[in-house]
């Protein structure tokens, strides 16, 4: 049994993992970079260790420093969260060599999932329908043109070592092959250290449907239903829901069984996700995500199963708490990703200090957040600051709950995707459940936004009023901090000190 768990991550996911650890009587050992000395996730940890400079390569991706923190914190297990080292087979191996239990799949299965060609081949062998493509690394544009001719345009270049939507490049005709080939290789080299690419047929207006699977220590898989994640921008998910409005019970059972069989065939263990493209009643395998996913809470909402708890149980050699026959799903769940990005400026990153923060609440509302008032959103990490999840009786009910929850979610100081979500939920196609992976750009959903909301209208009104009279000069000449009354910045700073910081976490005695 795990007693002390090192959480090799930051932000909302570190907090979320620590919550389950606490519920299971496990101590959480946190890590942080210089930029995260005051971060909220530290307040959830029983102990925390500084890794190094803000640059991820010097901190959250630095294997030696993380293992050193595990040693100093006397950890017996490591949970990688998602992103950073979560799907790095070498990290999983190093953990095992250091005598640490790795909460995730075995390195061999992780390597297989991480190699797109190998996982396509393995899935096809297990009888899983695979998206049309050729399972070989392309040497030059001529070979690519030949393969693309056989597949038929449009085609999609993909990095063999890729994932998370990075390194994909769509080509509509033979003249674009050379540029697409070079672009895909260059992105693959910078992001994954491996320039190898292959070609798939591009499925237009497809839905992204994925299946959550748990594989027990003896290799028996249980599937927990699908999630539809078609609302994306630049291949990055923005909104996820379950059940998918496109699937009926028969298709749900079929896609679930297929995914479970596929992961069993890979020799997978723990929580994993199999992604499919879905179009015209047909689904084809896309990739395996060998980790806990960002959008896992919607599956937790409809099944009532704590996925992190299952991960920890399986890593400890125990079977998951539910058999396939015991999986019950109720209602519909919807997640909106709240990113520090400005939807009015093409989702431009918007790091900075959160000066005001208020979470929505109510029946069926869950917020997994990594920030509070006073938090700094640093520019060098993922833009996700919070996940807003609602659970309703049906899709209409959860959309209604989400509208109210978005209205009640206040984040000031950084721009967020909240106004985008508000507008998306009003779109008639979204309301009908007509979704496809390029809908955000095809419908120019973000371009239709004219305002970031009522708070900004108020700012505009103040600006117009001040510009009218002599007020501007008077106010501009004033000292920013009026003595005797704390400014909002000072208040925010105080909240930050309360919210965390290495010194605010009392190191508890080791046993």
């Amino acid at each position: 049994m795990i007693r002390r768990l090192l959480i090799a991550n930051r932000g909302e996911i570190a907090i979320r993992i620590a919550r389950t650890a606490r519920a299971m009587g496990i101590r959480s050992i946190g890590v942080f970079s210089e930029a995260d000395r005051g971060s909220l996730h530290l307040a959830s940890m029983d102990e925390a260790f500084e890794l190094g400079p803000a640059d991820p390569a010097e901190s959250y991706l630095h294997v030696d420093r993380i293992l050193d923190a595990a040693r100093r914190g006397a950890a017996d297990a490591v949970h990688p969260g998602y992103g950073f080292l979560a799907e790095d087979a070498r990290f999983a191996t190093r953990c095992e060599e250091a005598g640490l239990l790795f909460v995730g799949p075995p390195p061999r299965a992780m390597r297989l999932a991480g190699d797109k060609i190998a996982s396509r081949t393995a899935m096809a062998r297990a009888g899983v329908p695979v998206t049309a493509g050729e399972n070989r690394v392309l040497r030059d544009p001529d070979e690519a043109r030949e393969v693309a001719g056989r597949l038929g345009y449009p085609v999609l270049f993909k990095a063999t070592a890729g994932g998370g939507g990075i390194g994909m490049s769509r080509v509509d005709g033979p003249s674009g092959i050379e540029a697409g080939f070079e672009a895909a290789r260059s992105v693959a080299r910078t992001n994954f250290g491996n320039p190898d690419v292959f070609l798939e047929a591009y499925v237009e207006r497809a839905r992204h449907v994925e299946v959550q699977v748990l594989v027990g220590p003896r290799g028996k898989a249980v599937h927990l239903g699908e999630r539809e994640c078609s609302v994306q921008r630049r291949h990055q998910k923005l909104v996820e829901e379950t059940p998918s409005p496109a699937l009926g019970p028969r298709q749900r059972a079929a896609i679930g069984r297929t995914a479970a069989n596929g992961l069993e065939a890979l020799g997978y263990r723990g929580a994993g996700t199999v992604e499919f493209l879905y179009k015209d009643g047909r689904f084809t395998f896309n990739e395996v995500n060998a980790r806990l996913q960002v959008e896992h809470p919607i599956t937790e909402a409809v099944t009532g199963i704590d996925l992190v708890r299952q991960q920890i149980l399986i890593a400890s050699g125990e079977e998951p708490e539910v058999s396939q026959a015991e999986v019950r799903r109720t209602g519909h769940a919807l997640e909106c990703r709240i990113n520090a990005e400005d939807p009015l400026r093409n989702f431009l990153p918007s790091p900075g200090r959160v000066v005001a923060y208020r979470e929505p609440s109510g029946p069926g509302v869950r917020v997994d957040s990594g920030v509070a008032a006073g938090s700094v959103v640093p520019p060098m990490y993922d833009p996700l600051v919070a996940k807003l999840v609602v659970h309703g009786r049906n899709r209409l009910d959860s959309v209604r709950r989400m509208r109210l929850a978005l209205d009640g979610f206040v984040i000031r100081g950084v721009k967020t995707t909240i106004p985008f979500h508000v507008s998306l939920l009003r779109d008639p196609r979204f309301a009908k459940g007509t979704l496809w992976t390029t809908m955000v750009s095809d419908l120019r959903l973000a371009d239709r936004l004219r305002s970031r909301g009522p708070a900004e209208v108020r700012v505009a009104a103040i600006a117009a009023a001040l510009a009218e009279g002599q007020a501007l000069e008077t106010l501009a000449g004033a000292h920013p901090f009026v003595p005797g009354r704390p400014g909002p910045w000072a208040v925010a700073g105080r909240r930050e000190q309360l919210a965390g910081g290495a010194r605010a976490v009392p190191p508890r005695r080791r046993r």
Partner: protein
Amino acid sequence: MRFRLVVDGEAHDVVVRPRRGGAVVEVDGASYVAAVGKGAQGVAVRIGARRHRIEVRGLEVRVDGQRVDVLVRDVLADRGTQAAPGSGPTGVFEIRPPMPGRIVRLAVVAGGRVRRGDPIAVLEAMKMQNEIPAPADGVVREVHVREGETIGADRLIAVLEAS
């Protein structure tokens, strides 16, 4: 005119262009048409369906009766970037990043010529690379950053003299 407006601790870049009966107000790039009138108390502003009453007494600002923390900084008359006839934008441009981040690529050297839209630098923030384009044709007079450096949003990247 152009200024930084800090409302309850949140800073905004604001441009106000007066016009008959009110103004066009830009807040961080989002544009609003405001009708401005004298109310019984303070100034009445209508934007779309929303109405606000703003009172200013000395340093105290009230919006709809509620006291609001308001600071004004860096008031400028509109910057000298209006196009001279036929020649595109002229003047000296201070190039600053749209957000903090890391300079992953610096595409110019001091003294080099650029055309409008050419990349000055590539800034990486939150795992995304953003190109910072030259706002005009001209000569790069100063470069203030190095490749690999992490910079704040107020840092000067380069100075461009349009020509």
